């Protein structure tokens, strides 16, 4: 019960008009940052960090974490409306969110996304409140082999997804891996596939590829089909919240699964982006509605959003207790803590209880305030679709260009974005699935590094992946996931004549 008392003390710290005002400001800024692909959460927090030096640490961290919540909420908006992921972790939200918008259900998709973000975050905060010390110990168990196992599981849960044929899926995923390997090899310091071009030093950045493949590709498809987004008649009905909430309870199992996946990925730290993919992949595998995923299924929005938000929130835990950031934004917040004279690490909870519990209480409050704010704005967001296409289309191209530019401050990336746009259009047309490509692009690098680190540690012995129960367990689960389609087919065969094997 110590935690509960501490938490109540924390609420006493966080609940003041001044702090609530800071939350409102932070969330507004965060949503703007989340909506524009050019401004990431890390970016926004980093830019505002110096402004907060004159504030008390608690007030400052409330402002900055609120920006973080806002950015997590905001990333979903452009994903759903325009197929442009505002943040890397909202890529998986486009898979069903955008089709929903095309079916005229943009408002439901938005409400679903916001609500599930909220659920994921609250679940993670509750975990932080009561399990922080235990969880921190668990995170220490993760060495290179364990990291690779988690990354392998993410890929495995995503295999066999998408609409393409097996060979097109394979080609697409491998292209993602190949693109991810361009640039400096972190393990040996060798330059790969750069051919002496300075522009390629940085490799192909995930966000640039995603903005091009999804955003520009979508614009091209829409133009070809005749000047408008499909189903632009987004009806402005004010009951969207009630309508959507009625559908959510039956998805409780997806919520639970995604919360667990998200917390797991946030703590280890795998990050919000892989968490969202894994959440989506697992829901598609296990949910009854799984076969409709990709066509505009509300559950396909709920699964990745819940996981992404749970991961984004629980990523703050390793930062506070271990001093390792679980996400780039957490990394910048970590820098902020140091500047305010707070030393993140195992002693922070002991030495600065006011600060820590104030922060945790503000996580509850910030998400409640955030949810209310974004839900009231849903009709406004959905109304953006009513802007004439000949304004929206070039404006989107401009925003995409800005987004691509800001990733590395390089015009080269803007050109790459246009090329990725053409690729996105062609791949869509020819049914090369894009999700495996972007997943490989975001995780390929890390997976390769973890694998090679593990090989260094074990002196090239592959059995290291089954050297302990944690790592072996995850790897085995990964293998089960990878062969799931085959397993279900097999089960259907044995089950008898009545059952028709589902196409995986």
């Amino acid at each position, binding site marked *: 019960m110590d935690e509960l008392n501490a938490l109540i003390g924390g609420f006493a710290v966080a609940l003041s008009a001044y702090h609530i005002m800071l939350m409102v400001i932070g969330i507004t800024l965060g949503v703007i940052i989340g909506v524009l692909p050019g401004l990431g959460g890390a970016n926004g927090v980093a830019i505002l960090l110096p402004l907060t030096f004159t504030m008390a640490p608690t007030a400052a961290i409330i402002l900055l974490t609120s920006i973080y919540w806002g950015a997590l909420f905001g990333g979903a908006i452009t994903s759903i409306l325009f197929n442009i992921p505002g943040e890397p972790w909202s890529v998986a939200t486009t898979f069903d969110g955008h089709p929903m918008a095309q079916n005229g259900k943009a408002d439901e998709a938005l409400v679903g996304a916001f609500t599930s973000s909220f659920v994921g975050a609250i679940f993670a905060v509750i975990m932080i409140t009561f399990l922080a010390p235990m969880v921190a110990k668990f995170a220490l168990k993760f060495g290179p082999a364990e990291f690779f196992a988690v990354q392998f599981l993410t890929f495995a849960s995503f295999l066999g997804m998408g609409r393409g044929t097996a060979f097109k899926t394979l080609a697409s995923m491998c292209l993602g891996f190949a693109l991810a390997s361009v640039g400096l090899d972190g393990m040996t310091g060798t330059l790969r596939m750069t051919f002496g071009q300075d522009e390629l030093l940085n490799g192909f950045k995930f966000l640039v590829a995603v903005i091009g493949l999804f955003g520009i590709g979508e614009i091209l498809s829409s133009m070809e089909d005749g000047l408008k987004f499909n189903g632009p008649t987004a009806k402005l009905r004010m009951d969207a919240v009630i309508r959507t909430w009625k559908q959510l309870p039956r998805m409780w199992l997806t919520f639970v699964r995604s919360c667990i996946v998200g917390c797991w990925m946030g703590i280890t730290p795998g990050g919000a982006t892989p968490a969202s993919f894994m959440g989506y992949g697992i829901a598609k595998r296990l949910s009854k509605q799984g076969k409709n995923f990709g066509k505009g299924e509300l559950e396909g929005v709920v699964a990745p959003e819940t996981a992404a938000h749970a991961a984004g929130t629980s990523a703050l835990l390793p930062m506070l207790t271990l001093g390792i950031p679980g996400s780039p934004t957490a990394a910048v917040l970590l820098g902020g803590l140091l500047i305010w004279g707070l030393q993140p690490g195992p002693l922070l909870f002991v030495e600065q209880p006011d600060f820590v519990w104030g922060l945790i209480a503000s996580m509850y409050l910030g998400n409640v305030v955030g949810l209310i704010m974004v839900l009231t704005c849903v009709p406004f967001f959905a109304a953006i679709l009513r802007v*004439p296409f000949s304004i929206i289309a070039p*404006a989107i191209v*401009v925003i995409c260009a800005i987004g691509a530019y800001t990733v590395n401050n390089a015009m080269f990336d803007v050109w790459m974005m246009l090329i990725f746009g053409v690729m996105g259009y062609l791949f869509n047309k020819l049914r090369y699935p894009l999700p495996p490509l972007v997943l490989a692009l975001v995780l390929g690098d890390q997976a390769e590094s973890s694998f090679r680190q593990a090989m260094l540690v074990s002196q090239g012995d592959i059995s290291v992946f089954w050297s302990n129960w944690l790592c072996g367990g995850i790897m085995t689960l990964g293998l089960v996931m990878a062969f799931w389609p085959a397993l279900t087919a097999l089960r259907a065969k044995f089950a008898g004549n009545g059952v028709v094997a589902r196409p995986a």
Partner: protein
Amino acid sequence: MSTNEEAEGRPLASYRTLDIAVAIFFLVVCAIVMVDSLRIGIAWKANEGPQPGLFPFYIVLAMGIASLVNLARALPHTEEGAEAAVSSVGLGRMAAIFVPAVVFVLATHFIGIYVSATIYIGAFMLFFGKFPLWKAVVVSLGIAIVNFLMFEVWFLVPLPKGPLEAALGY
């Protein structure tokens, strides 16, 4: 997915042509990556595990095999493959947004992103959306100014700028 029944105009490329072209694109990428992987080594060293080229090499090897299968599947003339993937009208519409986009990005190198974005959005509204001139000017200028305030003034994210911004002291 859109079907092409409603796409009017002269068919320009069939699915077969596009499929073959994309498969060849994959094979070209495959060849490029393989050459560089071999340069940096693809061996599995005793104490260190894989060399830097090992992963990319086998990844694109898999990609190459998959692309050869895709190519082999695309090659035979089938009814499905002969269907028109792109028509002249569709391509024209896409070019209407894409060609100006290329010009816009090119112009950014010289006059900065804000001025070129204003011209790009304004021109598109004027010629494609058939908006009256004043509306095009107001909207395009508005978008550029809001972006300018957001990035340069509030969030201090420097974007490419040209002579106009320099004259204004940025």
